[in-house]
């Protein structure tokens, strides 16, 4: 009961604010609604008993990535008028494509029971109170089986950091370099 209340609450907030994020004109409003979506998703993670991801989502996504977004939005101080929408055609196409995708996934989910292997409705999930401590499990897995991907991810972040610095560095006109 509590589970379903929480799920519907978080899911509703997530979907609603995601929709608002895409439709708001003002980029800051979009960012605010994206943050709301991300927080609601964090709630979903918590409801799925993934505590570490919950906090990672909050610290990294909301506290890190979204700060960056808001920061850039404010720095570039966008006074450009965005009234004129040239992408009307594209909007139509987008909805169409999205609906097709939705249809496809719905069909798969609904027909899943008839697929070999019992489909998606796995009933083997452990009850919430029998789960091993999430953070420890995650750490063990991350630093044993997935050590290489972990290192690759860190290299990726390093590359991204260097790239971002190079990209955003204030290169002045008239500079020889």
């Amino acid at each position: 009961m509590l589970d379903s209340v929480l799920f519907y609450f978080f899911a509703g907030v997530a979907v609603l604010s995601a929709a608002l994020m895409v439709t708001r004109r003002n980029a800051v409003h979009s960012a605010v609604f994206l943050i709301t979506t991300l927080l609601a998703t964090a709630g979903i993670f918590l409801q799925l008993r993934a505590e570490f991801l919950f906090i990672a989502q909050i610290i990294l996504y909301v506290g890190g990535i979204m700060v960056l977004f808001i920061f850039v939005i404010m720095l570039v101080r966008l006074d450009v008028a965005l009234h004129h929408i040239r992408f009307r055609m594209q909007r139509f196409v987008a909805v169409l494509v999205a609906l097709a995708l939705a249809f496809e996934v719905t069909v798969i989910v609904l027909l899943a029971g008839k697929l070999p292997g019992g489909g998606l409705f796995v009933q083997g999930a452990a009850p919430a109170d029998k789960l091993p401590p999430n953070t420890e499990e995650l750490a063990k897995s991350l630093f044993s089986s997935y050590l290489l991907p972990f290192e690759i991810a860190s290299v990726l972040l390093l590359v991204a950091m260097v790239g971002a610095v190079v990209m955003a560095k204030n290169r002045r006109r008239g500079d020889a370099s």
Partner: protein
Amino acid sequence: MMSPAHYLFLSLALFMIGCIGVVTRRNVIVVLMSIELILNAVNINLVLFSRVFGDVAGQVFALFIIADAAAEAAVGLGIIIAFFRNRETLLADEMDLLKW
């Protein structure tokens, strides 16, 4: 726990909204944000199946995706700042030159 289908539909909805955002918005920053939303939708699936199968690998990959999103945001915003500095615009349809 709710049935996995609930989560799948939630993830699907977020994914769709993200896609629509990517395709329809002109402001590059909002396009980037929509991409973040898509990645987030994928994360829900990963965490869901990690829970369903009792295997923590899904969460590990969700973590990798968050790291990737961070990298992408950093580079993407770096590009946007560099672009804005040169062209003073953030509209996707005005980014029509390969070189200037």
